[in-house]
């Protein structure tokens, strides 16, 4: 009898521990959102990706529809080849859509924003997004501003 209540206690302990694992997985991580459904890959080449990282979000109209899955340097063109995974239920993005790297807030993380085009054909797996806009580098912008101001004053 004693050993039975012992087993019950141990069993309850195991159940509580695995319940915590499930809570951690579904309540506190994006486990559920990244592991459901199919995705397809699209590539885009940027001249400068700024602070874009792996797993950065990809958005249309501010809604996250995918994530950056790979970033590589193209050794011939010296452009950054970014591979993005888009969730399978967003499967009719026009093929002339453009991708730009934006910043969330003034100092926030970079993300890719896709602006839909007007073409009838859709982006399919393996396609490349032709029109891209690179990340805005704050230092360059400040540099330009100072240059403009000083050149104005000298003239």
């Amino acid at each position, binding site marked *: 009898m004693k050993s039975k209540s*012992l087993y019950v206690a*141990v069993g309850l*302990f195991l159940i*509580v*521990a695995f319940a*915590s694992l499930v809570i*951690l*997985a579904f309540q*506190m991580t*994006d486990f559920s959102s990244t592991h459901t459904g199919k995705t397809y890959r699209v590539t885009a080449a940027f001249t400068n990706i700024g602070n874009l990282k792996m797993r950065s979000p990809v958005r249309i109209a501010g809604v996250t529809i995918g994530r950056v899955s790979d970033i590589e340097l193209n050794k011939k063109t010296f452009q950054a080849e970014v591979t993005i995974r888009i969730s399978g239920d967003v499967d009719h993005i026009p093929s002339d859509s453009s991708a730009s790297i934006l910043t969330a807030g003034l100092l926030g993380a970079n993300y890719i924003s896709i602006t839909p085009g007007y073409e009838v054909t859709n982006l399919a797996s393996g396609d490349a997004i032709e029109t891209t806009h690179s990340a805005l580098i704050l230092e360059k912008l400040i540099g330009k501003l100072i240059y403009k101001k000083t050149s104005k004053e000298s003239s």
Partner: protein
Amino acid sequence: MNNSRLLRVGQQSLSLIADMGHAGLFLWSVITSRIPWRRIVPLISEQLYRAGIMSLLITILAGFFIGMVVGLQGFHTLQKFSAEQALGKLLALSIVRELGPVIAALLFAGRAGSSLTAELGLMATTDQLSAMRMLGVNPLWRVVAPRFWGALIALPLLTLIFDVVAIYGGSLVGVDWLGVDRGAFWSGMQSVVEFGGDVMNGVLKSGVFAFLIVWISLYQGYFCEPNAKGMSIATTKTVVYGSLAVLAFDFILTALVMGGW
């Protein structure tokens, strides 16, 4: 005079190395001893009860208060940058990556490790282990192995429970008392915490900590000097070495994992 001091240093470092070798051989013989698994399962579950469930209350209480204090401190610091929306991220990442595994392991070393050492030490002192050997029962599988596996299973599970309780403790302070937006709190947390990279790494860490603690405490108990003073030294050593090993390996493991990022 000088010579004898030098001699002592040499002897001490030799005995330190010998101790480590002894502990390694002990571990090897525990892991490789032929274990009759069918007979050992009830023993493991008894140890799971004593190491895991008896430490459950202290783990939950500690987790709750640590979550609350991280929530409070984090809120006041983040508020200076009016970034208190990021409290969920701060809380979850610091708990799941560091505080959960480390503090659960430190509590475990104090609560379960010391009791393992004291128990085995008393068994050795009162010649129970020798009596077992005389009866033809190998104490390595009858006494040591169940405690080893039981503690090895218990600590990662305790860490998971600690994580959840601490995060809810932090949300109680941050969201319910201090008024951080509930949606921003949880969604911010979900957007940064990764299941494989953060939660599973924490569990892996706590598995390594459990291994270190149980190895140290069983070795200290099994080979303690068979008298009252020896037992007290062994118990103290378990807690001190166990805690230091946890903190040192925490740094090493974190550096290894972070190195890949």
